[in-house]
């Protein structure tokens, strides 16, 4: 990776960036990272979300259902247009699988991914690419210059989506 400044978007945070800054999340597991980009305004937004929805905290960044509208609002405030935004999703892994029959709700990573898809669709934002699921930790970097989104894992790959 080149040495430009990468602003780290921590768990339960969401941020907006314009060039030359980049946004990154490192060591993502079951969290879902929602990358939004306006190619004309060259403004990027990234949310690093822990839960599908949240009853225990007023913190907007913790859950998909609250973070996505908040991120869109922040992007619009920075000059992006909602109708030009498109989304990419990264993360939502199931890092640990217990042997035996699984009961109860689906794994958190899966629920995060499903909720992110539904929330974006509901808000009319197109999802252009995903690198989600599996038992795989991921890192990602989003460059607002051209919207490039690099995703890599510890062993398997680096790819651009």
């Amino acid at each position, binding site marked *: 990776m080149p040495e430009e400044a990468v602003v780290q978007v921590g768990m339960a945070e969401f941020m907006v960036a314009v060039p030359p800054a980049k946004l990154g999340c*490192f060591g993502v597991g079951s969290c879902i990272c929602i990358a939004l980009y306006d190619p004309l305004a060259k403004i990027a937004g990234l949310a690093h979300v822990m839960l599908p929805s949240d009853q225990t905290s007023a913190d907007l960044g913790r859950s998909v259902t609250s973070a996505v509208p908040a991120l869109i609002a922040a992007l619009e405030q920075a000059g992006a247009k909602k109708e030009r935004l498109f989304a990419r999703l990264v993360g939502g892994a199931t890092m640990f699988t217990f042997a035996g029959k699984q009961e109860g709700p689906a794994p958190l990573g899966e629920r995060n991914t499903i909720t992110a898809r539904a929330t974006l669709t509901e808000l009319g934002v197109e999802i252009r690419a995903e690198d989600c699921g599996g038992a795989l930790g991921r890192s990602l970097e989003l460059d607002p210059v051209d919207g490039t989104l690099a995703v890599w894992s510890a062993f398997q790959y680096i790819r651009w989506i």
Partner: protein
Amino acid sequence: MSTRELGPLKPLEMDALKEVGNIGAGHAATALSQMLGVTVRITVPEASIIRVQDIPRPLGGPEAVVAATYFRIFGQAPGRMLIFTTREVLPEVLLLLLGKRPRPDMPLLPEEESAIREMGNILCSAYLNALADLMGMQLLPSVPALAYDMVGSVLATVLAESAESQDKALLIETRFVEATRPITMYLFLIPESGALEPMLKSLENISGGVKKV
């Protein structure tokens, strides 16, 4: 089960929880010493209450690769336990466990995975047995789940699971170290917020207060 907002704990309560870590990890270290045939010691446990999103960074960066075993804990003080060692240390551990070094930078072999699971099992069981004896309650671990991946991904996933029911988490951390080899293992016990009350209560009953160690 009584729940309790995880606010700041009194110093005495923090000491009690550290003591829990001390006793649990002490027994786990003995078990680990026997398993590995070396002398494993523990560091002074640290107990802290963090926002679930503020994941600890014990190993430098979030992308450091670790071999981690993860347990759910059932019983009167439910919670989670995560035990891991770094990729750098893993060859030494596997050498002791299996009598041979893994090939560098390759995915783990099934026998290596099962050795790591078994080691996690022994550490977790010894720790929980000691706690159960101390507190007079039953604590049962799940079977271990294994990940060989980025430490950030592993810790974030465990904390995010606990975030479904709480926005702060209690973290009791102990390290296992071996004097003559570069072996360090990390153990995190994360009781659910509802487990805190019964734990503190049972500790009070034992000592009529908390023993200073």
